[in-house]
């Protein structure tokens, strides 16, 4: 019924519009969606463009909010603020370590979940899903309460003390939120895995360990790499959880947050631009290489 009433309502508007503007509606109609999409993409790109453009600004005063004049100062001295260099190093160290740890133990979990049946699988999938569905702020807050509790009675002295928080607690938190993403990514890759390839290897005399390293691992390696890339980008960008568990240790986002009330140095835009360009190049190269590999196959 609703369809029958909708039709006469829309049809006349379309015809009157096309009469009035000489087929303008006919010209416009197929272009609405692409134009809308283009606008949405512009909306997504604008802040990135602003970040890059303002990295060439010479701000009048301490805050890089208003365009003043073109300058390469920021790019010539990207670390010219106390603490900035250390914060970037900490960010990279946390990202690399948490990526390596989370990728290894997450891949192991993904393998176990796709290849073996055992009791409690449903509950386990739930535990893996929960960190992705929990607001970051709740995870950050709850981790902080645990770390504080290790330094207070009744726990103090019976467990390793994790308060005051610092590098170690940041690393613990980053591995925690990365594990779930790695498991999900690796599982997706394993879902389409042809087990007969492994059976063939075993029939040809390889034992299970050899089969894993010579057949299984190379085949799921792209999935593991995708998981590692995801983990790295989540880690290097994380602010909310890190803010709760970092204490006086600064990662790059924490450093930006703590300084932005008193100053907004142009170096923030420079480092942001470097990270952006680096990531784009990395992903671009990976895509081109995998595209070439696919064509060769």
């Amino acid at each position, binding site marked *: 019924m609703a369809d029958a009433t909708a039709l006469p309502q829309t049809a006349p508007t379309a015809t009157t519009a096309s009469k009035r503007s000489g087929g303008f509606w006919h010209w416009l109609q197929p272009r609405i969606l692409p134009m809308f999409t283009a606008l949405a993409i512009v909306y*997504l790109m604008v802040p990135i463009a602003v970040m890059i453009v303002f990295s060439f600004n010479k701000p009048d005063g301490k805050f890089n909010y208003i365009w003043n004049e073109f300058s390469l100062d920021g790019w010539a001295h990207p670390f010219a603020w106390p603490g900035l260099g250390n914060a970037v190093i900490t960010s990279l160290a946390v990202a690399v370590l948490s990526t390596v740890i989370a990728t290894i133990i997450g891949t192991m*979990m993904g393998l*176990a979940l796709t290849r073996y049946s055992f009791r409690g699988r449903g509950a386990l999938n739930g535990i893996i899903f929960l960190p992705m569905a929990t*607001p970051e702020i709740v*995870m950050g807050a709850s981790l*902080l*309460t645990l770390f504080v509790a290790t330094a207070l009675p009744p726990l103090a002295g019976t467990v390793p003390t994790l308060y005051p928080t610092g590098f170690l607690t940041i690393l613990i938190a980053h591995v925690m939120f990365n594990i779930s993403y790695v498991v999900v990514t690796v599982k997706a890759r394993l879902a389409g895995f042809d087990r007969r390839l492994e059976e063939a290897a075993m029939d040809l005399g390889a034992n299970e360990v050899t089969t894993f390293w010579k057949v299984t691992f190379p085949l799921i390696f792209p999935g593991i790499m995708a998981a590692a890339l995801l983990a790295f980008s989540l880690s290097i960008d994380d602010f909310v959880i890190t803010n709760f568990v970092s204490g006086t240790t600064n990662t790059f*986002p924490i450093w930006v947050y703590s300084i932005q009330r008193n100053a907004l140095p142009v170096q923030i835009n420079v480092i942001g631009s470097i990270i952006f360009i680096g990531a784009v190049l990395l992903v671009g190269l990976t895509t081109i290489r995998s595209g070439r590999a696919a064509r060769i196959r």
Partner: protein
Amino acid sequence: MTAATAHAPTGPTFRARFGRAVPYLLLAPGLLWLVFFYVIPAIQMFTYSVSTGSLERGFEMTFTADAYATALDTFGKQFLNSLLYGGAATILTLLIGFPVAYTIAFRGGRYKNLILFLVIAPFFTSFLIRTISWKILLGDEGPLLAPLRHGFGLIDANIPLLGHAGVIDGRFSILNTPIAQVAGLTYNFLPFMILPLYVALEKIDPRLIEAAEDLYANRGAAFRRVTLPLALPGVFAGTLLTFIPAMGDYINAELLGNTQTRMIGNVIQNRLLLQNDYPVGSALSFILMAGILVAVAVYARLLGTEQLTG
């Protein structure tokens, strides 16, 4: 004895040595990590929310609900703000994201991967820096408003459509108003909406839509009766991926909003990190978590299908 054993160069096989323990050995490190650093912290946070004490003296579990009473009495407005601004941003991302995902899935052609790449490109910049970029853009003297203000003489203009929301001290502003805050939230979570919508729409077999049109459905009806129902899992995933982090966000409120638009995340971080008020901070986090779980359950029921989540 399998064929593998006969050829294995080193004694008993992997399976013979570890047997049925293999899956558990593979799971143990990750599971322990999640138990120690996700499950136990959640329990610890609940414990603190029903405790009294201070960081200096330590906390004692007294099973008091005082912290919950304080949380609800004092911060109702911030909870409401979270719901309001988080909800508004979620609806906006859906309204913007659906046409975009639809275009990529059905009209993308050879540009599909390029557009998808552009959609995720913001992730290559820090969340914080992107929000600061909005602060530059939307400022009174920023690239958007300065020309309007100086070129077109829109100073002091009250734009009727936006009402009072955009007026600060009698001048039209965007920064430090709810408009900027919702725009920032919408921006930051838009890719989280587009990607699951795209995944759901991409799976739809175009022949189903053609079949509906062959059966005399007009384009609107085919969309409503075929495309939209099949896209629902994407809508479900996208709204959750947007709404949950948007509810808990405090960066957009702090950088783009004002003191009246603070959300619950601002209060939680203030209580825990600045005031060391662990009972109230924990209670607030717990209420947020519980509220979100209830909302998700109701929402899943409303959308009607359990298989959506599976």
